[in-house]
């Protein structure tokens, strides 16, 4: 079992849409993870490591806290 999500929320789905309809696969390739992991993160079923979280934020050119929120 991966680290189960719960308290950590994210805006990845909205950000993908804002980024011209970026697909989960495109984001996964940019970050270096699998599409299934992107899907699990978006559904708040898996909390990524700090490295992956920073990589995702970097893809969207946003600070980490604008992509992920803790306890929201």
């Amino acid at each position: 079992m991966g680290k189960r999500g719960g308290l950590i929320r994210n805006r990845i789905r909205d950000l993908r849409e804002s980024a011209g309809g970026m697909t989960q696969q495109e984001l996964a390739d940019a970050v270096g993870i699998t599409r299934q992991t992107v899907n699990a993160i978006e559904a708040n079923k898996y909390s990524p490591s700090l490295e992956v979280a920073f990589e995702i934020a970097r893809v969207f050119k946003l600070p980490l806290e604008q992509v992920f929120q803790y306890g929201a």
Partner: protein
Amino acid sequence: MSFREKSLWVMLLGLAGASAFYSYNVASVNQVLQPDIDWRAMSVLPPMVGLFIAAVVVLVVFSVVGHAVMAIVDRRTGEDERDRLIALKGEQIGGFVLACGVFFSLWLAVISSGNFLFTHLLLAFWVLAQMAEYIAQLVIYRMER
């Protein structure tokens, strides 16, 4: 379904098939060569070693062919941190099953004079541990979808 999940299914089915092949044939050999012996005095016979090697070959061939077919029909995806965490959880569950098997096998070794039951209980728990590891991973992949 990801490449990793399909790979787990191939390994699970291969292991189940090879185990069934081995168990059925060992039971047949036992019935012919040790029909009236007390179950506690049974020993592993040379044909059973041959059957074990055959079962391992069946498993390896099935796995290689299964993965080759998967690689042809599907894009292979790499492994990431989530896959590694799920694999670790599966190994944890498999390790627990194997530890139980070692305990029961040692107990059986103490009460039996032959080595057949000890050897095969240990083998059965190794197979169960592997299956538990694969099934646990498949369940986690499904739950986190």
